[in-house]
């Protein structure tokens, strides 16, 4: 097509200027791509770390439990639901939990504690709890020879109660039947540190917790929460949606981590908006350069547009020609940008940048800034570069299309 030839040759006409534009647009692409890669990568990393820490990618509760927790809002028929979830090939692990806020007595001291009943094996497959044991052995559902169940105590609580491995811990709470629940447990392990999620928690095995709170056992098992880990955190929302569809009849609510950790999710979204602003500034600066090129290029060729129009080119075709030239420039810029970005993004995604000082985010150590390569990281900058170029070309193209051929021909 002659129009494409014409556009190409017009670009090649002022090689130095086109090359500079190409470089600045390609550079803009590169910066955008890198910014996105870093922000997406860092967030993926954080999300992975905290979902694997305790939240999981998806949680199931009795409806309204998250808004207003209660001992009585239970997930019944636990085994059926667990089997159903485990059948899904996307699921890597699922673990039930029972929550019972209690008073904990140590050596002459009392502190409130969140007591959590866990399926010790499932929990170890689903979250990193087992790896956070500081002292002693990971919890089991065994009883000591004296007939006491084991307990695992959070680091700060253990400190406050002056407890260590082998000591007795007394818990007082309310049973699900309204009775006063109290029992003695033997500290088997100290878990976490002063900053971690577990610091004021007590962990009991599921049978121990069920017996403590007088809840159903075995076939009648109940729980307050199911935490599910999927193959990838990005599956969370779609998985939650489809599982909710299957559980419509029950009084259960399926929530992805975005809902469970909504305050983190919202601040992450806000932070992303912040990075959009800096990307906007990059684009703005690049666009001014592009505007300059296109404007100079069209002003110089005013006379030629006059000729094109005089011999019968429609205004729209002149407009299209200029937009086509910009589009070609933008495409090549994206190609150049991609060529520059991909190796760097790959390096960021695989090796990452080690942080000079690891950041401790609520007990989660964050020591490497990782990038990410995804369609989003590549396509968004492409879209932005192409769209902003076309936008910037719009005014010069309009001007050239509307100019009177006579005036254009008389231009020097």
């Amino acid at each position, binding site marked *: 097509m002659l129009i494409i*030839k014409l556009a190409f040759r017009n670009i090649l006409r002022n090689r130095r200027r086109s090359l500079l534009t190409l470089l600045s647009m390609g550079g803009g692409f590169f910066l955008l791509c890198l910014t996105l890669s870093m922000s997406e990568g860092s967030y993926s990393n954080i999300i992975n770390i905290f979902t694997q820490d305790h939240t999981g990618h998806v949680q199931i509760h009795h409806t309204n439990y998250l808004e207003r927790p209660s001992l009585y809002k239970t997930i019944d028929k636990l085994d059926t639901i667990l089997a159903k979830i485990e059948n899904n090939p996307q699921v890597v692990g699922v673990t039930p939990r029972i929550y019972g806020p209690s008073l904990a007595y140590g050596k002459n001291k009392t502190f409130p504690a969140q007591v959590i009943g866990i399926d010790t094996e499932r929990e170890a497959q689903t979250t990193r709890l087992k790896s956070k044991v500081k002292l002693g052995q990971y919890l089991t559902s065994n009883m000591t020879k004296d007939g006491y169940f084991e307990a695992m105590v959070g680091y700060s609580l253990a400190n406050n109660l002056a407890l260590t491995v082998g000591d007795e811990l007394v818990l007082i709470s309310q049973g699900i039947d309204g009775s006063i629940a109290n029992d003695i447990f033997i500290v088997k392990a100290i878990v976490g540190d002063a900053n971690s999620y577990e610091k004021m928690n007590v962990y009991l095995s599921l049978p121990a917790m069920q017996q403590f709170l007088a809840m159903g056992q075995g076939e009648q098992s109940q729980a307050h929460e199911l935490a599910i880990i999927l193959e990838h955190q990005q599956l969370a929302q779609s998985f939650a949606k489809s599982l909710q569809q299957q559980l419509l009849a029950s009084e259960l609510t399926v929530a992805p981590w975005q809902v469970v950790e909504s305050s983190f999710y919202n601040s992450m979204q806000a932070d992303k908006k912040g990075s959009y602003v800096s990307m906007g500034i990059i684009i703005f600066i690049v666009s001014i350069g592009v505007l300059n090129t296109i404007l100079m290029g069209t002003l110089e060729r005013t006379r*030629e547009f006059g000729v094109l129009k005089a011999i019968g080119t*429609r205004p729209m075709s002149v407009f299209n020609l200029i937009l086509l030239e910009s589009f070609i420039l933008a495409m090549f810029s994206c190609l150049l940008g991609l060529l520059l970005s991909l190796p760097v993004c790959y390096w960021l995604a695989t090796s990452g940048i080690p942080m000079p000082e690891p950041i401790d985010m609520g007990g989660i150590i964050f020591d490497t800034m990782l990038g990410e390569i995804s369609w989003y990281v590549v396509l968004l900058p492409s879209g932005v570069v192409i769209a902003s170029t076309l936008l910037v070309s719009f005014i010069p193209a309009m001007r050239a299309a509307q100019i009177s051929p006579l005036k254009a021909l008389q231009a020097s």
Partner: protein
Amino acid sequence: MTTLAQNKKPKNDDSANSATVIETKALCRHFGQGDTLVKALTNANLTIERGEFTAIIGPSGSGKSTLLQLIGGLDSPTSGDVLLDNRHISQMTGSELSDFRRDHIGFIFQAYNLIPVLSAKENIEYIMLLQGISAHERAKRVTTIMHAVGLEGLEDRRPAELSGGQQQRVAVARAMVSEPSIILADEPTANLDSKTGIELLDMMKTLNEQQNMTFVFSTHDPKIMERAKRIIRLVDGCVVDDERRN
């Protein structure tokens, strides 16, 4: 050899039957107002027949360009009317006028005005592309017309690689190749030396005779105007003389 005139199909019944290509009726073009009013063209009533080879002559500033621009639909008259192939061009707007110029008018400018990034061949092809003519037909016409204007072998040269005379020949070819009703040339030889100018004019005259193509050109060079079959003389925007010769 197929001539362009033989390829030409009637554009509509009116123009096929009528010998009149252009008619101007009380055509006026004024610039400015009050003290600065310039009457570039006053009350021009002209009729140009198919196949005429007409020179518009007059001193600089007499209104020659203004008249050609009005006829070609590049400018709008202050009053009066231009009919081209019996159509009122002052009533057309936007892309209608673009299409009209594309199909009915061939322009040749004093400054050649070829597209610098296109080769001679592509400059000629461009307008046919706008007309939606097939690649095969375009190639055929380019060959024919390059021969007719005596530029065989220079098809792939860019304008910068051609002499002024050669560029103007390409411009003539570009103007003719779309088979317009009329070719308007505003001082086509003014940028050429006298000998080259006369050669160009002779070539245009040959095309006019062989292919019955209608030419209207302006000049103030006596050696050029001699070659016209009809001379329209303008003075201060008024037609003062209209003479047909043999």
